[in-house]
């Protein structure tokens, strides 16, 4: 429903986004994954009209948006990276304020508010000031303030940064519920373990798309294999040995007691090594990201 076509944006000397073309599939969760400064927030800000793109076009339902971003904001909810509600207002006052300025009819608001507070387990905190809430609660409050105006599109900019692990797990449970209701959700995150919760992914680095696609499909078509080795002797000795016969596209890294080996061609390199255990692993999104990222670097070098 929303489509970005060749969007570029620079801040002074920094190219925040270069030629970004993306769309968000309806009723799916799209993850925008990238480190700090990759351009995640800029994408949201441009879609919502909070920043102006230097070039490129934005469409909603194939209708180009030039000036009137209310076409988008009317049906969207946005949760900025930082907690942006009022810390000195209570949970309920915050919800009321955002319902007011978003013209949520009073009748619908009251029942919806109670339901949201109950669903998020905040009903007993309704009179507590937002500033006194835990990170996880703040995040749920921000989300609730968005949901009050029943948006079709939900944009969440790093919703889990600074949130404890347990609340993160809980958060994605709520996201799944929203998806069931048919909402289109876009989440940015620097954490690829979290990205596993999405349907669709966009890997972003330095304002450019490294790879995008359906997560299940990306995982089905991994162009490399991953093995986990528990070495018998010293792990560094093993690395030295492997480095000796390392060929194009092979890579390894230590993770705890294990040496992980990425091979493009097969496990030939692992013959004749001293290991207690060698097992092939299913690559996670992190491994997939690493692969495409290094491919891109190689591509650049070739130019």
């Amino acid at each position: 429903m929303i489509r970005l076509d060749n969007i570029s944006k620079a801040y002074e000397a920094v190219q925040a986004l270069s030629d970004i073309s993306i769309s968000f599939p309806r009723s799916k969760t799209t993850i925008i994954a990238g480190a700090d400064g990759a351009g995640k927030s800029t994408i949201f800000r441009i879609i919502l009209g909070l920043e102006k793109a230097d070039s490129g076009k934005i469409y909603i339902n194939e209708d180009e948006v030039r000036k009137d971003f209310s076409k988008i904001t009317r049906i969207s909810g946005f949760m900025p990276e930082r907690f942006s509600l009022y810390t000195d207002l209570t949970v309920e006052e915050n919800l009321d304020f955002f319902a007011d300025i978003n013209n949520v009819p009073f009748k619908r608001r009251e029942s919806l508010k109670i339901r949201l507070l109950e669903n998020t387990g905040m009903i007993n905190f309704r009179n507590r000031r937002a500033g006194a809430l835990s990170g996880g609660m703040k995040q749920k409050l921000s989300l609730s303030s968005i949901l009050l105006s029943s948006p079709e599109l939900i944009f969440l900019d790093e919703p889990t940064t600074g949130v404890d692990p347990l609340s993160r797990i809980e958060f994605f449970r709520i996201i799944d519920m929203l998806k069931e209701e048919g909402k289109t959700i876009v989440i940015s995150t620097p954490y690829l373990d979290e990205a596993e919760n999405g349907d669709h992914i966009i890997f972003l680095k330095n304002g450019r798309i490294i790879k995008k696609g359906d997560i299940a499909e990306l995982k089905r078509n991994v162009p490399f294999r991953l093995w986990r080795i528990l070495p018998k002797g010293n792990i560094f000795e093993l690395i030295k040995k492997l480095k000796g016969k390392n060929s194009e596209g092979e890579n390894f890294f230590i993770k705890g007691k294990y040496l992980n080996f990425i091979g493009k061609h097969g496990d030939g390199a692992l013959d004749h090594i001293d290991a207690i255990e060698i097992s092939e692993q299913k690559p996670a999104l992190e491994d997939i990201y690493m692969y495409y990222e290094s491919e891109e670097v190689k591509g650049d070098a070739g130019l």
Partner: protein
Amino acid sequence: MSNNIIEIKNLVKKFGRFTAVNSISFGIREGEILGFLGPNGAGKTTTIKMIMGLINITEGEIIVDGMDIVTHRKKIKDKLGYMSQKFSLYPKLNARENVEFFAGISGLSRDKVNNKIAELKEIIHPDIIEKSVENLPPGIKQKVALFASLIPDPEILLLDEPTSGVDPKMRRNFWQDIYELKKIGKTILVTTHNIDEVEYADRIVILHRGNIIVEGEPANLVREYDVDSVETLFKEAVKKNERD
């Protein structure tokens, strides 16, 4: 007899009526990487600050290399290196000036400072050594911060959420750097709130509401608790702690 280089016994920290750390005991073995995991406000940073001698302990003991923190604060400090992704560097200074500053306060001679700068140039690109740190990508910032924390050549490194906001490749590379440090005998304490990251550690301690709820080697713990991942283990342990 333990070969713990840091021994923490019944450590308590109270801020007024609030108990940040509630009588925790654990050890850090010489030459190991200990992962310190917990939600925000679990007491991770408070514990690190007490080890650093930056805040006083309310009750209990911290013994570093056989010395008590209360009586040997200065000597212990000389053994410790500290880095946090958020606060370690001065954002307005460039990488070289930051390193010069930290080398200066560590009392390094001019020659040694110059050596350090030369080393830094090998680690990060010479072009960006003169750029304000605030304008560097997080991965580079992290490299510089780690470099700066190693200037006094500490035996023990305390890393407080060193990988927050860093891209996956940089994070993985960062851990490879950490293994290099382990290889040369450093002891490393790393805090994180990314569950998937604890698999990099030799041993983990999970803190929740000021209590230690899990301690052990990640792979063994998963087997022991009969769960599919550290994440599940964490969830179960937190639930149990909340009930108790």
